[in-house]
């Protein structure tokens, strides 16, 4: 794969791409230039091209759902290439494995592609320099690429990138070992606050989201899904539906074959010449359902089962010392049960996709986090090869993990094939809430034995939740190492005796990853319980937390026998309690912890959590009115996410994480009765509004040369425990179940 072959263009591409792509697990290397780059005369790899007029085309292969990946990943390439950002045009990639991983999920766009983008940028820059050197007949060492042109350093002669493109295209792509990278001090854009590429389009309503995709001859579809997971259509009557003006027909979509994976749920689609008519027609359908086996699922009963399981021994997933001996020797024991319900993603743009099946090929336009999963899912649904599935990626009106699951795309594809014309499937908000891949419900049990001073000498924690793996396999009962590694098996406290156990749970709804995933419930329990111990010991929460974490060190989970995937190579991204301590100290200082004068009814709470390889400490100021009404005047967050591409976009992600965290902590709850989800829209699945959101969130970024880590997700987990710890300080009431809105505070 890495064999250097200078005799063919394909060889050059292999050479430049081999390393980066292999690291990322890509299997296939490009055999031809991407369509988006076909107007380029010089295209040394699949991510960049230069047109004759000097325009630099950079391919964004990650999806844009608000995290700025579509801008910031190409920006790394542009910087390294010495391209003038004003003359860069971003082309959104279709789904294609030649780009490596495109699943915009897991907070890793920058982390995984920083190096790849630098390599692609450096090789393009060096080829342009070589082309200039050849033209001037001077040593390449005298040719320096500077802001879209190459300058001959001794004579001051200049040639623009457009002028050099044709000559550069004839040169061999330099070997990776020959690439010379810019120094950090030479960065032009990295570390600066460059606005997102689509900013003006967004503020003028010109940005194209999935909801805005339109192709000629397109019809609109709205689908009545089985109300219970695994339900089936027995029969349906569409007579009244067809009376609705604009409705042309109704089409049954078959139920999935377990495991459901990303397959459509099945149901009946109403086809019309506009969206509203499809919605209206659908209301007139009469469907006779077989509800299926999950009709016995009622979340209030299920909750009791999970809690009972958490009170019993489970599968040991981490063991340090001897917990039972530790408890026997403890001066005192404390225990607590925590519970977090199912949550829905509720992105502002409901699920939507356009598909056009013709001549054995299916072309889609979709707001998807994972266009390669769209290829796989649509190919399986239509029985065609995935190379015949062309997935165009629009902007996403929010994703939060929902749009990495392309069931809605497969629906559009199935309907287009059946109808022989392009189809746009539009989900309503009710569809979105009823048919999510929910964030997992979880019950946790925590127990600590403490010494005379209140320091834990034994720590037992149990986590019980239906696993995301149940989406992909039947009969899954235990959590995956990945889920357990999100704040549970990697608890960073300095404990002589620690045992972590996982209990069994079966899913009755579709379970999927949601922004920060299992970290939400694990951080809630672990960070809340730490605060419970601090107050039981009569200690300051921050001081106690630092002692609990212990001295700066690298926690070697592998040596403790833990199956810990981490989210990146452990050598590069160790579990470093020094970095965790540092963000706690920073946020304490910046928030005025222990010093700030607060009005009556206000208090601060603190929590710190490592996730997605980043270290976050959060201080929440809460105000509780005499009537028990909560407001959040201020949030302080200290962030060590390694090297940062754009401080402003990092701050915005953490500002957003505070709001997302406030939504799930204050009001997020999905329940079910007889297998049907009880919530339906923003009236009964509320999310935080302007008047409920934290009034001010201040974000402090640790300056570091550590490798880039996650940004989009890690701000969420510490928020709920920090808020609940603050509420305890005001009210004396411990919140052990979310959402807080369910509890009486006074």
């Amino acid at each position, binding site marked *: 794969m890495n064999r250097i072959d200078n005799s063919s263009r394909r060889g050059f591409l292999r050479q430049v791409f081999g390393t980066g792509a292999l690291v990322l697990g890509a299997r296939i290397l490009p055999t031809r230039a991407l369509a988006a780059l076909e107007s380029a005369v010089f295209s040394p790899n699949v991510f960049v091209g230069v047109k004759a007029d000097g325009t630099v085309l950079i391919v964004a292969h990650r999806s844009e759902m608000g995290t700025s990946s579509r801008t910031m990943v190409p920006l790394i390439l542009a910087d390294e290439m010495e391209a003038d950002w004003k003359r860069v045009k971003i082309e959104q990639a279709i789904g294609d494995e030649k780009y490596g991983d495109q699943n915009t999920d897991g907070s890793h766009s920058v982390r995984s592609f920083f190096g790849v983008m630098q390599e692609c940028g450096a090789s393009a820059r060096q080829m342009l320099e070589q082309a200039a050197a050849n033209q001037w007949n001077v040593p390449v060492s005298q040719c320096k690429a500077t802001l879209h042109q190459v300058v001959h350093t001794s004579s001051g002669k200049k040639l623009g990138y457009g002028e050099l493109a044709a000559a550069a295209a004839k040169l061999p792509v330099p070997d990776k070992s020959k690439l010379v990278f810019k120094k950090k001090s030479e960065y032009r854009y990295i570390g600066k606050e460059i606005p997102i590429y689509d900013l003006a389009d967004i503020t003028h309503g010109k940005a194209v989201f999935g909801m805005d995709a339109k192709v000629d001859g397109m019809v609109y579809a709205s689908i009545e899904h089985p109300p219970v997971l695994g339900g089936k259509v027995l029969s349906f009557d569409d007579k009244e539906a067809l009376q609705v003006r604009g409705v042309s027909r109704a089409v049954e979509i078959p139920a999935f074959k377990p495991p459901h994976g990303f397959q459509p749920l099945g149901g009946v689609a109403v086809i019309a010449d506009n969206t509203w008519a499809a919605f209206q027609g659908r209301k007139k359908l009469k469907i006779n359902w077989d509800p299926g086996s999950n009709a016995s699922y009622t979340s209030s009963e299920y909750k009791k089962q999970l809690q009972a399981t958490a009170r019993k021994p489970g599968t040991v997933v981490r063991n340090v010392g001897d917990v039972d001996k530790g408890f026997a020797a403890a001066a005192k024991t404390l225990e607590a049960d925590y519970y977090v319900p199912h949550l829905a993603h509720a992105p502002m743009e409901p699920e939507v996709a356009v598909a056009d099946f013709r001549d054995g090929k299916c072309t889609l336009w979709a707001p998807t986090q994972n266009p390669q999963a769209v290829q796989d899912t649509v190919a399986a649904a239509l029985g065609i090869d995935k190379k015949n599935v062309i997935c165009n990626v629009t902007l996403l*009106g929010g994703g939060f993990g929902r749009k990495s699951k392309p069931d809605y795309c497969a629906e559009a594809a199935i309907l287009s094939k059946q109808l022989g014309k392009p189809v746009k499937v539009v989900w309503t908000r009710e569809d979105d809430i009823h048919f999510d891949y929910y964030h997992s419900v979880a019950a946790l049990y925590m127990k600590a034995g403490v010494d005379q001073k209140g320091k834990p000498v034994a720590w037992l924690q149990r986590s019980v939740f239906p696993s995301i793996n149940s989406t992909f396999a039947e009969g899954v009962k235990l959590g995956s190492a990945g889920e357990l590694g999100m704040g549970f098996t990697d608890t960073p406290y300095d404990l002589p005796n620690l045992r972590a156990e996982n209990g069994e749970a079966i899913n009755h709804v579709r379970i999927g990853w949601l922004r920060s995933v299992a970290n939400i419930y694990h951080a809630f329990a672990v960070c809340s319980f730490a605060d419970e111990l601090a107050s039981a010991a009569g200690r300051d929460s921050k001081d106690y937390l630092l002692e609990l974490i212990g001295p700066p060190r690298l926690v070697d989970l592998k040596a403790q026998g833990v199956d810990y995937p981490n989210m990146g190579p452990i050598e590069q991204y160790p579990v470093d309690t020094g970095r965790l301590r540092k963000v706690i100290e920073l946020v304490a200082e910046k928030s005025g912890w222990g010093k700030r004068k607060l009005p009556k009814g206000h208090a601060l709470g603190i929590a710190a959590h490592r996730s997605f390889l980043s270290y976050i400490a959060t201080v929440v100021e809460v105000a509780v009115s005499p009537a028990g009404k909560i407001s959040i005047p201020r949030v302080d967050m200290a962030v060590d996410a390694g090297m940062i591409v754009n401080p402003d976009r990092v701050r915005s992600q953490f500002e957003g994480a505070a709001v997302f965290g406030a939504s799930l902590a204050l009001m997020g709850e999905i329940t079910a009765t007889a297998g049907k989800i009880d919530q339906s829209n923003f009236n009964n699945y509320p999310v935080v509004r302007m008047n409920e959101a934290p009034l001010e969130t201040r974000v402090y970024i640790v300056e570091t040369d550590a490798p880039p880590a996650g940004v989009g997700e890690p701000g969420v987990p510490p928020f709920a425990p920090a808020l609940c710890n603050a509420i305890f300080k005001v009210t004396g009431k411990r919140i052990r179940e979310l959402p807080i809105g369910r509890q009486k505070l006074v």
Partner: protein
Amino acid sequence: MITLKINGAQRQFDGDPEMPLLWYLRDVAGLTGSKFGCGVGLCGACTVHQDGVAIRSCVTPVRGTVGKEITTIEGLGSSLNGGDHPLQKAWAALNVPQCGYCQVGQIMQAASLLKTKPKPTDKDIDDGMSGNICRCGTYQRIRAAIHMAAKEKA
């Protein structure tokens, strides 16, 4: 056949007069700046102006807008109207959007707010903007951008 006036132009529509304005704008008129978020007036993504006042186009039948001036984002800060609205400038200056989907509705709502409250307090902004949801959580910057635009206008 009914006649609508959208962004200063007359448009004829012979479809179902019960169709919400949002779907007329998006599917029929091709003005896709206004967004579908909830369909029941709970999120504000579909906000447009009717005679200068913010309304939820997802629950406003087209028949109800006859004889009224409808303004959408496409008509708010256009070259016809002398360039960007001060809110659009403030939105860009403060890098408000994340995903961007709700932002058109937020801007239209804020533009309506500034007409009645040219110098809004934080409380005015809470009252005026709490019908508009942003799931990405850009509220802090929306508030700052409204204050900035108010300052520029004054």
